[in-house]
């Protein structure tokens, strides 16, 4: 097997200048799996629910950067009232 250090690999493949850190890469795989499972369970549950409740289909929430910034602005201005 061809082992490369994570540093060489990342620099070669993606021209990145940051060292992403071995541990920081590995934990993403772990979290990705856990979070992915969460999404799967939620979808599964929704599908079961849909059998009984005929609801409108929710499109996946799209995070528009403007919307994100504006929504934080709204929420915090509400808080400060």
């Amino acid at each position: 097997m061809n082992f490369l250090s994570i540093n060489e690999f990342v620099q070669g493949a993606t021209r990145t200048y940051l060292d992403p850190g071995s541990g920081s890469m590995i934990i993403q795989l772990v979290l990705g799996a856990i979070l992915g499972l969460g999404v799967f369970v939620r979808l599964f549950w929704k599908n079961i629910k849909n059998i009984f409740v005929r609801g409108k289909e929710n499109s996946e929430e799209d995070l528009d950067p403007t919307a994100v910034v504006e929504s934080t602005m709204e929420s915090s201005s509400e808080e400060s009232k």
Partner: protein
Amino acid sequence: MIALNEKVSGSFRDPSGFMFKHDGKLYRQVNQKYQEEYDMLMSSGLYEQLNKSRTLVAHKEVDLSLAPQPEIAYKVIQPETIDFISYPYEWCFNQLKDAAILTLAIARRALKFGMSLKDASAYNIQFHRGKPLFIDTLSFEKYEEGMPWVAYRQFCQHFLAPLALMAKKDIRLAQLMRLYIDGIPLDLASKLLPATTKLNFGLASHIHLHAKTQKRYENKEVSQEQVKGRISKSALYSLLDSLLSTVRSLKVETIQTEWTDYYEDNNYTQDSFEAKRQLVRTFIEKVQPKKVWDLGGNTGEFSRVASDLQIPTVCFDIDPGAVQQNYDMVKKKNEKFMLPLCMDLTNPSPDLGWHNAERDSMQARGPVDLVMALALIHHLAISNNVPLIDAARYFADLGENLIIEFVPKRDSQVTRLLASRVDIFPDYTLEGFRDAFSLFYDILTEERVPDSERTLFLLMKK
């Protein structure tokens, strides 16, 4: 050709390009190495969309002959000018939080366009026209299917760790950002955070477990096969969303500190408060400054006299609670000319980083046309023992003109400061003040604030 020493010293790390100054204007050289990514950013629609939402700094391509290193240059671009460069250790909690949210939103949007945000440094965000703005055009790279997020660790160090420490432990831990300019080490954050944060899924995974994993894989090489293809695009979206909900859940409620209720407990009647505001306005109109710094500006009550005249104004205050109230107001009213920042004037931001030149001191970011120091001098002179002459010298270093309020010993605020200590300030009088400041300034106007013991001065540097 431009000498290399015109390179802006804060931008040496990224081989994709660098910032440089020419004729007083800021430019960015994009290196050939970055050609593919730059073209992708510009042609994929990502730039257009981020630009439309005013979240990525706008730029125009200019003459390539300006390039300081033409042999490796692909383009020279000129980004739009930012009025004042501020740093994360000068932001209040909500500013850092909004910067974090914007960074995640941009990372997510980039992924939609087949790109990955390779740099999630908090220094890539600036507050421009009242809102956070991502300023590093060269932070995008082509997304490779199955690859983890390269900037994940950086995001956690630069944003999540300080936000968590401020929200869950102590607001003053924001100062750790000044010590660790590449972000707070996660093992340190993990140690400092209360144990209860281990019950919070987001903090448990992105900080505590993250720190543990770092420790475990320290000095271990990880193979390409081990990483590549092991994290799907949808898992990456989930990771970003998890970070986003973690950041959003962190809150610092209205911080009740020393100064936030200052205006309810001071030496002014409503009338004299208005009169003071009117005087400040007259002085500002006389000076017609292009930029204003208000020192010790609290929640920005008097800074707004300047910013309402559409003069870019920075309002510095030592109290993060006051700064946060000010920032919340900026957002609520969508103000474009006010920038609230945390600053301890008795220990202002120094030059930091490599060669002490990566991050500028507060003073190096000046001088400005007009400095304001209202209801401040007694705190410097009496609480902090700064002789009036030294205060005058410092203000003169910061700007051309000065609006300053002298608060005499008869004033109840000063009486309070002196109540618990011996009065070792024989020169702290109106005459002593005039003498000290006349060494550096001409006194243009001197006006007693009606119904108070205080005097307002307009001074011009000699």
